[in-house]
């Protein structure tokens, strides 16, 4: 009887074995009950959702820590499954699903497949999820999980097709969709193609990581498989995608030309244009990914050769079994532990003792600045935003004192139309005096600014402000401040201009005015006369 159909049986078994191991790891576990999940369908749905989540993160090249997985489970549980689980429990559940079920607590997983060509069972290695240490925000060391090649195969076979065929079939679909102008569907397909390319790249990166860790763990058939997949991809992708790129580019340009010349596209055409643009961007990204695959392909080859070369001298080493030869014997006779350090010592290096050089004593002694540096660092870690906000508040407070002082002055000038500082001093109440002169420094600045400008024409200032000032100013600007005051007040809005001139000879004295340092002082200043011009119809 011809038994050709049994060829490649282990390959099929690898595929089936993946499901087999998954269900074996999941079904017999009592832990599920803790989370109120009893049925196999509930377990399976959850496991595959988590796997999909890890795939999504892997495809996006983003970290996937247990916290992320926990939050994901929490989200889907809150929305759909509605089990009574807290966030912490969701994290535990994620830990259980990933580390216990998918990784078998870190043990390497094998499924025995019968090899009809050799007539014996063959161990087929299967792993769904791998993990690696990563530093989050550059400091916190965490474990990040990612999908392995087997994991990808398992998941893709749930919706897509098997490995080598995947790209080709997706491409065929893509081509058909382009021809039929069903661009919205073509967008999905090109996304899939892009993902497949990315998976290919990640498979290689993972292989390189494993070779670096331990080249002996990486088998020759595996290496062969990866290279073959690569070559097929490299061979076909570039030519086709360059073709697509041109084609899509032309389509986009045609539509855009139409848009310019005939003014308007129908809504369907606008949609098409949008889709085509997405497709174009994905084709470009796919080509980028292709470039990376190409270079990684050579890196991988070089790395594997190199690692193998450096290990070749070691390949003849014969090993004994730690468990049989040592561990079990110690379990029988603990007194052997007394000398176990003989076995372990080669692993450990002690730091060599330091030697004190007496000459150090004669060096110029500088204080050790560790502490100060530490303090500086603490200052730097202060919340930048809060600090800015505080500074902003201080500034606003200061500007308000200027404004109040000016407002107080304007009110009196408005009332009298023309008033000198000397007269003002006579009529002003004690309370208002504090507003007018909050402290010496502010008062001086206000007066100096007023005198320096001599005259303010508010009509022109307003025009100028409209034309020039777009940004908010952060310091005292007398023009703007005056404008603000008269614009805000119904009474003062009628002021057309303000004139300031010095009155010869007279000196005005203000007693008991504080300065910024809080000391009481007497100010003596020249007398100034303020005059305003009001619009007709306003007061007077």
């Amino acid at each position, binding site marked *: 009887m011809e038994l050709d159909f049994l060829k490649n049986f282990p390959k099929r078994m690898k595929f089936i074995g993946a499901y087999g191991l998954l269900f074996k790891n999941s079904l017999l576990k009592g832990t599920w009950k803790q989370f109120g999940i009893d049925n196999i369908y509930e377990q399976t749905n959850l496991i595959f959702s988590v796997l999909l989540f890890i795939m999504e993160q892997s495809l996006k090249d983003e970290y996937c820590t247990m916290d992320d997985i926990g939050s994901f489970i929490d989200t889907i549980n809150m929305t759909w499954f509605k089990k009574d689980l807290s966030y912490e429990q969701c994290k535990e559940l994620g830990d259980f699903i990933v580390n216990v079920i998918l990784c078998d607590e870190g043990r*390497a997983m094998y499924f025995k497949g019968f090899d009809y060509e050799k007539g014996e069972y063959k161990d087929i290695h299967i*792993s769904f999820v791998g993990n690696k240490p990563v530093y989050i925000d550059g400091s916190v060391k965490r*474990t990040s999980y990612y999908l392995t090649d087997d994991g990808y195969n398992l998941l893709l076979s749930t919706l897509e097709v098997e490995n080598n065929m995947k790209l080709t079939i997706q491409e065929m679909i893509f081509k058909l969709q382009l021809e039929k102008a069903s661009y919205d569907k073509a967008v999905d397909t090109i996304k899939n193609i892009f993902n497949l390319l990315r998976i290919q790249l990640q498979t290689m990166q993972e292989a390189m990581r494993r070779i670096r*860790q331990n080249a002996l763990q990486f088998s020759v058939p595996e290496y062969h498989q990866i290279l073959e997949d690569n070559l097929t991809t490299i061979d076909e992708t570039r030519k086709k995608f360059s073709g697509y790129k041109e084609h899509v580019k032309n389509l986009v340009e045609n539509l855009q030309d139409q848009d310019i010349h005939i003014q308007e596209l129908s809504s369907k055409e606008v949609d098409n244009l949008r889709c085509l643009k997405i497709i174009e961007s994905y084709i470009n990204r796919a080509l980028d990914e292709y470039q990376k695959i190409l270079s990684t392909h050579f890196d991988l080859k070089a790395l594997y050769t190199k690692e193998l070369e450096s290990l070749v001298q*070691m390949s003849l080493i014969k090993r004994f079994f730690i468990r049989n030869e040592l561990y079990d014997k110690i379990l029988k006779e603990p007194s052997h*532990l007394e*000398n176990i350090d*003989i076995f372990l010592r080669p692993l450990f290096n*002690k730091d060599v003792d330091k030697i004190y050089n007496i000459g150090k004593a004669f060096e110029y002694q500088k204080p050790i600045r560790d502490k100060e540096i530490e303090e500086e660092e603490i200052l730097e870690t202060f919340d930048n935003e809060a600090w800015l906000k505080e500074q902003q508040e201080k500034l606003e407070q200061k500007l308000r004192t200027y404004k109040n002082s000016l407002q107080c002055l304007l009110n009196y000038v408005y009332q009298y139309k023309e008033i000198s500082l000397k007269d003002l001093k006579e009529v002003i109440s004690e309370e208002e005096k504090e507003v007018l002169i909050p402290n010496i420094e502010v008062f001086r600045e206000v007066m100096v600014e007023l005198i320096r400008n001599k005259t303010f024409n508010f009509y022109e200032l307003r025009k100028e402000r409209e034309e020039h000032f777009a940004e908010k100013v952060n310091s005292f600007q007398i023009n703007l401040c005056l404008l603000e005051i008269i614009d805000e007040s119904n009474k003062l809005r009628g002021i057309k201009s303000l004139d300031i001139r010095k009155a010869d000879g007279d000196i005005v004295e203000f007693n008991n005015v504080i300065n910024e340092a809080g000391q009481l002082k007497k100010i003596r200043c020249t007398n100034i006369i303020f005059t305003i011009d009001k619009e007709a119809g306003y007061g007077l």
Partner: protein
Amino acid sequence: MAYEIEEITTSQKIFYYLLKYKELREEEEQELYKAYTENKAVMNLVKQQGEVADSIIERYGSVIYLIPKEDNDFLGFSKAQLKKELCRSGATDKDYYLSQFVILTILAEFYDGQGSTSKTRNFMKVGELINCISERLKEGAANQKEDDDQSGLAFTNMIEAFEALRSDEKGAKTKTTKEGFIHRILEFLQNQGLIDYIEADEMIKTTKKLDHFMDFNLLNKNNYDRVMKVLGVTEDE
């Protein structure tokens, strides 16, 4: 055999580098690495210096390691020094032997393989390690009852020491918890570059260095005499 002065200097540089950093990686010190791998004279000189310093210089993969010999207390750890590193102050011998047992258990769990590499696990969680140790200790104690307690060192004692440590649900790593005890050992192994210990996820992963050491050195049949020494078997047996 005559050596060039340059070769001697290079070999001394390599040896001093090794004293400082315990290992020399190709990607970090290309020139020295190249000199060692490509110039037989340099390699011999370095190895010779290692011999004088009671150590072995070996290259595994693309890293050159300085490996102190078993009885080298200057570059390696003596029992007392190891105890100081692994156990809290005031620890008894029971604690020390327990710590040795913990390390051995980690190795036995990870390197139980028979294929082209001895490594069989990708990771182990701290919780599992603690359970594993408890179980193995009990197993050992069960063995012991049969031929009575003859030596001072017994698993029953170690179980007592281990179980006397509290187990903290939240994994508080104070001195008196199992987690704290294990934590100290794992930190030590991590500082020695042997494992990746990810505290936040309670994850233990082995490093390339440990993989190499186990495959090429510790479990190498050529070094089986160490095991014989540990087991107290004399050579002529």
